[in-house]
């Protein structure tokens, strides 16, 4: 069975194990930004990748059980849509934060020079 596994599947197996291990370690060390939600999401996502890499037929078995059968592709398509929506959402949040940082830096720069100019006028 081990010899039947292709290089790509081996790569996915190793990667999934590393990701699950890394995320679990970060959570156990209570590193900044680590939450139970992130841990469970990572284990679920990488767990699915790991299981499908070891048992590729599991995806079809799962789809049949769900009643989707050949509609597995539809499920995958919607998965991509959700992921891309999340990515765009993250982009817009990051963009907004960048703008806010610039506004703060600008306000401080202008306030500092205005303070200096007022001080010079008083002297």
């Amino acid at each position, binding site marked *: 069975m081990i010899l039947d596994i292709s290089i790509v599947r081996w790569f996915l197996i190793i990667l999934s194990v590393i990701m699950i291990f890394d995320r679990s370690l970060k959570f156990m060390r209570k590193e900044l930004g680590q939450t139970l939600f992130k841990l469970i999401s990572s284990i679920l996502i990488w767990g699915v990748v790991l299981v499908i890499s070891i048992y590729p037929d599991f995806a079809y078995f799962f789809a049949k059980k769900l009643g989707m059968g050949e509609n597995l592709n539809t499920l995958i398509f919607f998965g991509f849509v959700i992921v891309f929506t999340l990515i765009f959402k993250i982009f817009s949040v990051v963009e907004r934060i960048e703008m806010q940082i610039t506004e703060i830096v600008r306000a401080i*720069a202008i306030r*500092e020079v205005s303070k200096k*100019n007022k001080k010079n006028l008083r002297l």
Partner: protein
Amino acid sequence: MRKRNIYIVIPAYNEGKIIYKVISDIKKNGFKDIVVVDDGSTDDTEKVSLKAKVNVLRHFINRGKGAAVKTGLEFVKFENADIAVTMDGDGQHNAEDIKRMIRKIDEGYDIVLGSRFFNKKNKMPLFNRLANYLANIIVFITYNLWVSDSQSGFRAYNRLALKKLNTKLDRYEFDSEIIKEIARHKLKYCEIPIDVFYTKYSTSKIHKQSFKNGIKTLIKIITS
């Protein structure tokens, strides 16, 4: 030239070696209201600019050329400027061109864009020429306005333009965003030829528009 509040805004990032000369050249041409915006430099740009006895604003972290120019323009609006001229802090621009820009503002234009391509004397490296031409095409497709040099930082703005402009982009894509604002607010603009000096110093600045930054700029223009 009649008496007005004319401010020269210079965004600068690690230009400690040349900024004093840039400021001196501007002063030699009769302009004393100069604003240097130090965009989080790690060298002595701020110190040298203060030595030159000009207004110096400092971003305590680097935010990009566009952010620095906007900070300078916001400051001069606060100082009741009639005209603001922006130019690069790396010595590539000729301070003698400022007077010609102001003359165009006096003729009734809201924004004057300096164009490196109108001036046949400029020996721009081929790669820069091609990259700028591509940027012009992208700007035209995105904003439906053709200018010969959408990436030039040497520009002049009157009061109305300063009041209307509302830019959001922080880095090199800011220069293109100004074109968008011209189209959006139907501002009266013109282009004039400007000199550009490609020195060993200015072309060695690695933080300037490299190929990677150029691609990022193009993506920002299209998606903004």
